[in-house]
């Protein structure tokens, strides 16, 4: 598979999420080795990362754009979502109560990063006061798994 990339710059508005999902799914689908289930994993992980990016800009009142770059490489599909928001500290994330605890219903949010960790074969989050970059990788063939 020849290296190939597509890059999107979107306004930080939720209405663009479905377009991002469609473009990334279509790009990943160009690699015939990638199963539909893995494309779905990537679609959801990218949606989560882009949602966080949009939300970060909205919270700041930023009019800057969010960048989504999708690279098809020899043995993996790589997506990087970059925002210019305020960044966040992983240590600030509050774990959810157990599902058996009625207080679990108090927590509507906070599943996005957990899903990214589960769905992507690799993920890397770099965040500081200038913004956040989330890199997601899905392997195209089982043999490329470490």
């Amino acid at each position, binding site marked *: 598979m020849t290296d190939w990339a597509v890059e999107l710059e979107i306004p930080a508005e*939720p*209405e663009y*999420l*479905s377009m991002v*999902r469609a473009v990334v799914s279509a790009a990943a689908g160009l690699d015939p080795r990638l199963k539909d289930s893995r494309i*779905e994993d990537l*679609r*959801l992980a990218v*949606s*989560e990362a882009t*949602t966080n990016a*949009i*939300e970060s800009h909205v919270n700041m009142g930023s009019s800057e754009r969010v960048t989504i770059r999708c690279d098809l490489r020899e043995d993996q599909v790589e997506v990087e979502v970059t925002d210019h928001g305020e960044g966040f500290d992983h240590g600030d994330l509050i774990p959810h109560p157990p*599902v*058996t605890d*009625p*207080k*679990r*219903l*108090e*927590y*509507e*949010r*906070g*599943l*996005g990063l*957990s*899903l990214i960790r*589960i769905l992507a074969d690799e993920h890397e989050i770099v965040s500081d006061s200038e913004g956040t970059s989330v890199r997601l990788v899905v392997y195209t063939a089982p043999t490329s798994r470490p």
Partner: protein
Amino acid sequence: MPLPMRTLDRGEWVVLQVAGEIDMASAPQLRQRVVALVSDGVRALVLDLSNIGFCDSTGLGVIVAAVKRLRTNDGDLRVVTNDERLLALFEITRLDQVFAVFPDIDAASATAPAAYPGESGR
């Protein structure tokens, strides 16, 4: 984009059928619809997600909020889906232990709603 939704009565249950994609853009519509139904007195709600093409963590959050809203009003919410992808999502987030999931509307509405007096939020 409007989120396609419609309600139908099934015995003592009201079924809210949702189609399309539930994400940050569309989730507020689902949230408002559930709030309106509970305000109208609905206490037994089946959320039919059989025709959902996509649901992310924002959508899951709205479902959790809907469960909470029903239960704090002594009501019950059941979810319908047969979609493997959505079922897997409920499983990995363990939300399948927070609310009951049924394969179709008939199964979801076959038994009386449970009451949740004294549920969280009181």
